[in-house]
């Protein structure tokens, strides 16, 4: 397997306010698999995603990616790991306000030894004609597409998406999901997407349902449908 998540535990706060957010999460993913982490608010899905992404540490357990355990890495090694293997997409896009669209994508390309062609990505994302605009001149969907471009331009092994459609309307959300699907199919990236939109599970290869820090269900989706067919 490509990603092994083993008995991950994590808590926040101390004493009376101590909350066990993850209580021993374990599952595995194959390379190129599209996994959706589902669950209500506070179920621990974003925390798990952050631990997989190396921007947060587990109390115990480990995550192994391609045989390398992230828990054994120091800050420098973790940065390198993110640089080489990961792409991140956030709910609020987090684009750099005073860089234009193309430059925002180049910010991702710069980190890779073998980045994808920025113009190709701009065209794929339908942003080519907007490439000289600043983020605040674009709609939410266009900004999120830019964020996707920034994440995928370095051709990451793993694309982590934290509620990528959370701030978008139905049509724009579908557009974004289609794009993520394309990335998965075209570039073979492993995708882990956190969402609380139950419908999105239908386009995933694997669905992991979390509640109160434990896995309630970990299923292989045999009836996967395309993003185009999704409805909610």
């Amino acid at each position: 397997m490509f990603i092994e998540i083993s008995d991950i535990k994590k808590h926040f706060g101390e004493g009376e306010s101590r909350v066990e957010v993850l209580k021993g999460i374990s599952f595995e993913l194959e390379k190129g698999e599209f996994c959706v982490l589902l669950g209500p608010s506070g179920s621990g899905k974003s925390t798990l995603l952050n631990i997989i992404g190396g921007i947060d540490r587990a109390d115990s357990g480990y995550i192994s990616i391609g045989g390398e355990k992230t828990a054994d890495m120091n800050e420098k090694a973790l940065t390198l790991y993110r640089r080489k293997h990961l792409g991140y997409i956030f709910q609020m896009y987090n684009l750099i306000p005073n860089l234009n669209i193309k430059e925002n994508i180049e910010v991702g390309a710069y980190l890779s030894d073998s980045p994808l062609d920025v113009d190709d990505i701009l065209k794929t994302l339908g942003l080519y004609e907007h490439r000289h605009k600043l983020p605040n001149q674009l709609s939410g969907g266009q900004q999120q597409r830019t964020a996707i471009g920034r994440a995928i331009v370095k051709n990451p092994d793993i694309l982590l998406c934290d509620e990528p459609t959370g701030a978008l309307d139905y049509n724009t959300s579908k557009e974004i999901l289609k794009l993520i699907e394309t990335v998965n199919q075209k570039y073979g990236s492993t995708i882990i997407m956190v969402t609380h939109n139950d419908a999105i599970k239908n386009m995933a290869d694997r669905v992991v349902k979390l509640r109160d820090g434990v896995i309630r269900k970990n299923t292989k989706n045999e009836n996967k449908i395309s993003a185009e067919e999704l409805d909610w």
Partner: protein
Amino acid sequence: MRNPLNSRIPREIRREAGKYAVIFLFMLAIISVTSGFLIADASLKKAYDDSFEKYNIEDGDFEVEEPADDGLIAEIESGGVKLYENYYKEVPSVGGSKLRLFKPREEVNKICLLKGDMPENDSEIALDRLYMKSNSLSLGDELSLGGREYRITGIVALPDYSALYENVSDFMFDTEMFGVGAVTAKCFDGALGKTETHYSYSWKYNEPPADHFGAEAAEQSDEFLRHLSGKCELMNYVPTCRNSAIKFSGNDIGHDRVMFMVMLYMLIVIIAFVSAVTVTNTIAKEANVIGTLRASGYTKHELIRHYMAAPIIVLLIASLIGNILGYTVMKEYMAEMYLGSYSLVSYKTIWNADAFIDTTIIPFIILAVINYAILASKLTLSPLKFLRRDLKRHQRKKAFKLNTKIPIMIRYRLRVLFQNIPGYIMIFAGMFFASIVMIFSLLFAPLLDDFDKNTEKSMLAPHQYILKMPVETAEESAEKFAAGNLKIVRGDFSEDVSVYGIVSGSRYYKSDISDGKIEVSSAYADKYRLHRGDRITLHEEFGDREYKFTIGGIYNYPSTLAVFMDIDSFNETFEQPEGSFSGYFSEEELTDIDSRSIATEITLDDLKKTSRQLRRSMGSLMSVFSLLGVGVIILVVYLLSKVMIEKNTQSISVAKILGYNSSEISGIYLRTTTIVTIASMIFCLPFVTLALDLVWRSMMMEYAGWLAPVVPFSAYVKTILLGAATYIVTALILKRKINKVPMDEALKNTE
């Protein structure tokens, strides 16, 4: 691939144009001024140092009553020296001033012609540049001397009068009242023939010392004095190593450098902190971007470099342009500062690597280190903390408790105050520094006025004569005294102390010192922080004998460093015959003694020389200091208040949506800063007074004499008023900024 983040840097500078413009202009001003000063300082110092060889400056001079004949000259020259005639005559000139005139000099102390021509006939004269400037004389002007008219044909500098000291024992020189010049030999012997000639001889050692002013030179001059004694009656003996007219300017040119460097680095540190505070604010604003970049794999160092780039680029551009301005415009201006005080020979601008290092490399390092340290400490936070905008290292569990009885608007302001404490500490520091600079500029004139007033009040007698030989007078109010000079020696620095022997029951000295008590002048006690019971050691002027005294009291005499004792103790201490005296104090002018018996008369005017010269040479610099103070206030208050407003943009926007009007919002965000700024101005004043006292004392310790650092109340008031006026202008600009905060700012999702 070129780092795409670099494209942000020029945009960041454009976006924050106001902030960077303030930093740029301020840096430009201080770098160009400092660079100009350092270049002028080094160029003039080099010209001064080279002048010893170029103009063949003497190793010393002495004066005898009659011209030395060949036999005497040969005898003197057998002491390892070569003698040169350097006769001079002194004539009254414009405005009651005195001109010391020489023949053209061909061998030693050669005259540097700065402009025009040397005199060619006996109605022409060349005059010292500074004396001309102080007396508003120009080339071609006619000057009446001793009933004859002379046309000024040349502007000159005499290398042995780079500081226009009339006598080496003078406390200070006065370029308005004393000057030097040259006439033709024919004129000197002919037209000026009736004027008394001073038979002065300059000497050059056959084997000169390595350093003109070092211990070796002093030793050699003492040896030469021993060789001279007995051979002729000396009227005056001045080796170059003790000749203020030659060495004072050279010493001073080096001294001011320290003051400028301290000021430069203090300002750079303030700018570095202000810039770090503003960069920290940018980090807070861009927390999510930084989190994303870190999560994507950008390293901490890549981001530190990125966020440091804009201030560093601004500094480098300011340094570059500042250095260019320093080499061109400011150099002239700063050189004028010295040329306004000293009669220096012509100079050439020289490339000065130190100026570049001091004004560019070191500020660059200071700015880079402070910014790096602050950024590095901020960026140690995890990417996740940035994504969550959780930038506090130690999260406060609960909000500061404030009594709910306090009206909400006051509580709101207090919250703003607590939130911005680091910025307000910087405002306090900025106000402290600005006040030092401003009060320094404002105290100068009143301080000199105060000195003049006290000097007049505490003058020992309306007339004070120093005699060449003891003569009696019938004037009833005349009172004998003995006087001499000793030296205070501090490392390489030495200065004269006047020693007075006073008759018992003196009508002029208002303290009883008849029982062998020693008193020192208030100027001496104040400068060296002396108290009753302290022991002082003074040195013989031309010799190595030491004198130790225990201070029995302090006498109010602010103009001169002096020691007072009764005349019998004086004669005993200095091994003079009983009943010896060397001068008179008198209510009235002494008309019954031969003027040739009088060495000098000390007048009120003489005692005020220091203040007059300081006023002339440093007066223009004081307005620069005032401007600098205003600049610091603008820089600190504008930038830090701007940061505070930016930090609260969303809250301001929410307040607007809720229905608060602009003046209410300004009341919350700006009035707090106003209160802090004004309070800082007031509460920093005691610290400013202490700091000024230290700065002034350390500055005056480099000079001979003493001016007490008394800060007049008006200087405090003016500083506060000037500071407040500057702040009001800044606050109006910031108020506009608050008014411009859009309401949709609150609608932006920042998690």
